[in-house]
């Protein structure tokens, strides 16, 4: 059952077309990624979903409601974590969560949420004394304190160190497991690949692809490479005759076989039949990075 439906969304700022034509649906209980280069229209799209901006055209429906007309209802049911939104310097962790909890009819227990997000020791710490990762966790906590059905998280881990980023990912998975639908805006491939059930790739205000991470990779960049060091000379034709193989190259003592489908199995089977041992065997598959470059022509950041 879709909880968010966006159809032919359009939004411009003066002459600048931020969102040209975006359509997507988000299913209940999934982590839905919105991926794209900077300035692609990701944030504008989710801001329209969150009811913060009025679309110039197209339709947005969230939990069957209109984000503008039914704003009061949706603010109770949708939690939003915005890019670069901070809190007053002297506000303490527990105060912030208790304040935000007081806005909702059916809030989560702030104290329990603080512990769950690993901020227990920081409950009386002022916002400005928190580290980047702690600020981010507090920000996520604020988006969740109203017990939302949908959480929209924009640029969740930008500016975090790798450990804090991984911790945050673990947290998001926990939140999803508790039944919350998550819309995740990101430009980190690794994050999208690890977390998202489905991804919409947005470029220049349009959805250029929408699929699972694996689906995106295999549709756009299906090539795989198998590298190995053969224990005995291998005739190239043994490999090129395989239907899965498209190319064979040698670099030093290494053989590099490029192809599609179940390439690894095909290569290892033929080698085994000829009693050749493949040492240092490695399979290289395309990643979401490669798919992203194919789709948008942009090199991803980081």
């Amino acid at each position, binding site marked *: 059952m879709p909880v968010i439906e966006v159809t032919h969304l359009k939004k411009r700022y003066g002459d600048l077309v931020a969102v040209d034509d975006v359509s997507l649906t988000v299913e209940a209980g999934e982590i839905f990624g919105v991926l794209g280069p900077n300035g692609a229209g990701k944030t504008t799209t989710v801001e329209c979903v969150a009811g*913060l901006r009025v679309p110039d055209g197209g339709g947005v429906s969230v939990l069957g409601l209109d984000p503008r007309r039914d704003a009061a209802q949706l603010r109770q049911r949708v939690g*939003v974590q*915005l890019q670069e939104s901070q*809190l007053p310097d002297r*506000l303490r962790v527990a105060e912030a969560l208790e304040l935000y909890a007081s806005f909702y009819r059916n809030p989560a227990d702030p104290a329990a949420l603080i512990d769950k997000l690993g901020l227990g020791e920081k409950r009386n710490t002022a916002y400005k004394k928190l580290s980047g990762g702690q600020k981010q966790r507090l920000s996520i906590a604020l988006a969740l304190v*109203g017990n939302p059905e949908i959480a929209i998280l924009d640029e969740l881990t930008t500016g975090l160190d790798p450990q804090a980023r991984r911790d945050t990912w673990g947290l998001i998975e926990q939140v999803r497991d508790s039944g919350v639908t998550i819309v995740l805006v990101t430009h980190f491939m690794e994050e999208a690949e690890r977390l998202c059930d489905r991804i919409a790739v947005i470029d220049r205000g349009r959805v250029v692809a929408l699929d699972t991470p694996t689906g995106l990779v295999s549709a756009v960049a299906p090539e795989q490479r198998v590298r190995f060091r053969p224990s005995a000379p291998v005739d190239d034709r043994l490999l090129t005759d395989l239907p899965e193989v498209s190319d064979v190259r040698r670099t030093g003592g290494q053989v590099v076989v490029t192809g599609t489908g179940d390439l690894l199995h095909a290569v290892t089977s033929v080698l085994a039949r000829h009693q050749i041992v493949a040492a240092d065997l490695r399979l290289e598959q395309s990643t979401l990075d490669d798919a992203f470059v194919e789709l948008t022509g942009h090199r991803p950041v980081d």
Partner: protein
Amino acid sequence: MHAFRQILRIEARLYLRDLPTLLTIVGLPTMILVVLGLIPSLREPDPNFDGQNFVNYFAPSLLVVTLAMVGVNTMPMALATYRERGVLRRLATTPAHPGALLAAQLVVALAAILASALLLIIVGRLAFGVPLPEHPLGFALAFVLGTAALLALGLLVAAVARTTKAAQALAVPLFLLTMFFGGVYLPRFLLPDAVARIGDYTPPGVQALLDAWTGPSPQPLHLAIMAVIAVTAGAGAAKLFRWE
């Protein structure tokens, strides 16, 4: 209303937590009064001030100090900072309206101004025999209208400035002008008459405060001008204010 009360509680707590600023806002005018009051010659009646002493004459200008600091400086800067850092925007995604935060800021600003004025009046009365305002009603009116005019100007600053830097660039000259025309830098009897007369009509309207405190009742024109400024600047701010 519930959200507003919660936000007000937190904003008041944050205000009290910033002790140096709080002490300056509430205590500085009284501190200056005490320093001046300890100088014997300034407690002598002086024909320059219709036979009053300097301390009595200068007290209304000391009220201007707090009004200027809060009205066109700390209050607009706080709002500009909240906007720049996305505090208002974040609030807009919750069931609370960011307007509640703005209202809470105004309430704490008013509370600080009131506390400062009361402290000044009480210390002036007890320590140096500065008489209580002769026209309590007129004084209250002049004080409320002058405060409203300055806060409205402060809101206008917060409304038109896109960044905290821009807000600062507007707030600082406005603050200096308010202090100058309010007779804080130079007592008004030292200012050329034309400049002192301009000061009658610039917020917070120090002549009306002086008239209500020590002399005849405040002139209706002075009060009306403050009301006009408050309404005009306030309406402008409401029209131009951006939440993000």
